């Protein structure tokens, strides 16, 4: 990770910027959504890559303390994932390490999704909120 930042520093023009975007090690919220409204449905963990996140933070800290970059900005935003069914959400979650052990109750979610679809007459979907962090590091320059 330090090597990636060293390389970024090398190829950047003076005054250029690294924009680092990554998911946060945080709780995720899942909602059931219809065209009319959203309903809180479950929470889960996205802690499966906590060690990687700590290493990335340490690498960024090293790049800043070495004077390669100065920190210019930190923003948090919400990355939404919509799934037609709980099985689709499970497939998505199992694609990476971060949400693989999220403890999301998929069977219960699917049961509630079907019930909501039947009661509203609309195909309810699942919306997963994944918090992400965006950081900007600027290479000192003219």
């Amino acid at each position, binding site marked *: 990770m330090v090597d990636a930042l060293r390389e*970024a520093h090398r190829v950047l023009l003076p005054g250029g910027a690294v924009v680092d975007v990554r998911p946060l090690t945080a709780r995720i919220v899942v909602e059931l959504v219809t065209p009319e409204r959203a309903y809180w449905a479950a929470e889960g963990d996205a802690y499966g890559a906590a060690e990687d996140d700590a290493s990335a933070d340490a690498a960024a800290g090293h790049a800043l303390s070495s004077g390669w970059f100065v920190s210019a900005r930190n923003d948090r935003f919400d990355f939404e*994932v919509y799934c037609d069914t709980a099985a689709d959400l499970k497939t998505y979650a199992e694609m990476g390490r971060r949400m693989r052990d999220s403890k999301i109750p998929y069977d219960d979610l699917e049961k509630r999704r079907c019930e909501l679809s039947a009661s509203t007459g609309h195909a309810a979907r699942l919306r997963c909120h994944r918090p992400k962090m965006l950081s900007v590091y600027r290479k000192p320059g003219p």
Partner: protein
Amino acid sequence: MSIVATELDPAGAEPRAILDAADFRDVRVLEAGAGDGRLTFRYAREAKWVVGIDSKEPEIRSAAGNCSSELRGHVRFLCASATALPFPGETFDIVLLANSL
């Protein structure tokens, strides 16, 4: 009726946050961790040109194949590692690390 089973960031929060964080107009961008180009295609038209790299060759091949004719002139995808970039020094205005640090 939805046409896809899973939609990532349909509201465009990620490209909006990226474009808000730095001035992408007419600049040279390197995106490390470009994957299949999903994010690249959502901001690339603002930039002068973009090089997307990823160490996973099938993903990069998919990105190149999915690139629209509109973007093809100023977006290029390469299989490369972020820790050994095949570019000379001081080439880019912005390096975007997309879930890759």
